[in-house]
């Protein structure tokens, strides 16, 4: 990936983050910190990695995206809108009565949504089974499952990781985002061991490092039946100085003043770097 493409992706990420802030502020509800943190990863996936066609959102050979991180949904919406699955105008109706963009994605109504986002655990079971069934099709599209350290810490999730590892699903990629205490090298090692001991191919990268993300995805051996796990370390740096809450999952209302300040700081230069 060359420098200009990296800058382009940075610029798109900044625009996506602005949209997240705007939509959450207009809605007066919904968490935004995690969505802001996951924006760069989603931008990479939707612009560089996944095979998709926004004008044909249900195309059979498309790669599928699953997630169990409800807090990342604003980022997913903002990315889908920027990628052309629907008009950006829809973002300003986020969580409104009758709006297409509900608090959790409406699988039936929203273009680009491949699966419901579940609170019910373990959502990885649903994503893995989809991947397994799709692996038998001619195109064998990939299923990318985005999850967080919160899910990874559950016993039932670990059981599923072991089961999936034994079974072998070559087109299944779990992207595990580590934050807080787990975003350390210790946390990374622990999660990596869990996957590797269960027969998964495992790679690591930083969420804001597009080159590293590209290298990680490219280095997976897709001829092997092993499922893949990409462990992402997230730094929670968004390019602006919004006061951060202690718990990243905490949902809080963001004021318009804070949004204006953040939007100003997020203004990027043509080379993708913040102007401030």
């Amino acid at each position: 990936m060359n420098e200009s493409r990296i800058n382009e992706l940075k610029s798109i990420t900044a625009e996506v983050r602005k949209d997240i802030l705007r939509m959450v502020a207009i809605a007066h509800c919904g968490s935004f910190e995690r969505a802001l943190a996951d924006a760069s990863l989603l931008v990479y996936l939707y612009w560089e990695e996944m095979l998709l066609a926004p004008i044909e959102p249900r195309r059979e050979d498309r790669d599928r995206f699953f997630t169990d991180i409800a807090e990342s949904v604003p980022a997913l919406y903002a990315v889908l809108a920027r990628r052309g699955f629907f008009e950006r105008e829809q973002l300003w109706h986020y969580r409104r009565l009758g709006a297409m963009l509900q608090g959790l994605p409406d699988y039936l109504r929203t273009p680009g949504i491949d699966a419901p986002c579940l609170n019910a655990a373990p959502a990885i079971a649903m994503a893995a089974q989809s991947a397994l069934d799709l692996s038998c099709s001619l195109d064998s599209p990939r299923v990318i499952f985005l999850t967080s350290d919160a899910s990874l810490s559950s016993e039932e999730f670990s059981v599923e990781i072991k089961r999936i590892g034994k079974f072998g699903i070559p087109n299944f990629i779990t992207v595990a985002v580590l934050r807080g205490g787990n975003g350390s090298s210790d946390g990374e090692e622990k999660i990596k061991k869990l996957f590797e001991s269960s027969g998964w191919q495992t790679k690591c990268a930083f969420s804001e490092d597009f080159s590293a993300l590209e290298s990680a995805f490219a280095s997976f051996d897709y001829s092997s039946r092993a499922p893949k796990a990409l462990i992402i370390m997230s730094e929670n740096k968004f390019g602006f100085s919004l006061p951060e809450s202690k718990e990243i999952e905490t949902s809080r209302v963001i004021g318009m003043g804070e949004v204006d300040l953040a939007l100003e700081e997020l203004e990027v230069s043509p080379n993708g770097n913040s102007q401030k």
Partner: protein
Amino acid sequence: METHKNDNSLLAAFRTVMAEHAEKDKDFVLFVTEAAEVYGGFDDLPSDKVVFTHAPASVSLLRAAGSALAGKQPWLLGKTAEIAASGYSQIREAIAIPKLPVRIAALNGGVSTEQESTAEQLLEDIAIMRTLPGMKIFVPADDLSLRGITDAADKISEPLYLRLGTTPYSTPRDLYKEEFHAGGARILREGTGVTICACGIMVGQALKAAEMLEEQNISAEVVDCYSVKPFPERVMLSSVRRTGCCVTAEEAGEIGGLFGAAAECLGRTYPVPMRSVALDDRFVNSGTPDELREFYGLTCKEIVDASAQVWALRRR
């Protein structure tokens, strides 16, 4: 009327029907939970069409949902308690809300479990499933209705819940010429004095009750309400307009099940005296299914008593 008894349970019939569906439908797949696996008997299914999940219902339901997302037409077999109780949030979020065509077959509903504990004898499964928006509910009485319902399920692109018994059934076999569909019901015996609306294993009891009522000069119409949701309003209203009263019979708690569905329908449109033959508001003890049905009043005798009461009060 002559009734045909056999030693087959609906589970046995389900296995046969599933093998036939596996043969003709390329997208067919049956997920069997760890708890249901012990019942065995799926050797007739091609190995690529049956998935023994070796996992509880919560995981199995999500796997079935994932399969539906990949374009398959999945069935899932599990025990009622693990599906309707433990698996509720998975059904709600992963199947009912996105309206995925997952067909859930639940074993051992009501008091059909063999000397199990209260936790295993789930009486509220129909009520729980009825409250889920869009969920269709079928309670077959015999192998032919099961076959009809599974055929109908092929045309349904939304989730459905099918309650199966594992004890032998007993119903007449000479009147089955109708096509089964969601929102349908079968009139198994025509009558003008009282409408007996039953589902599942209680259909056989309703037919016996109708014979006993005939001796008391009460002409009972027996309706096999195999589709609990959507409720067969047309058939019920047509019957009740003739009889002026109604008794429901089900192997479930009386709150929120078939009685609830019938009362909601008739209360809105054509109120008539009603009685319910079902378990009242309590949990049940351990025991054999026959003992439990006798003890908790799920027999033809209770249907006769209830019918005589409503017949005396019937709307004229």
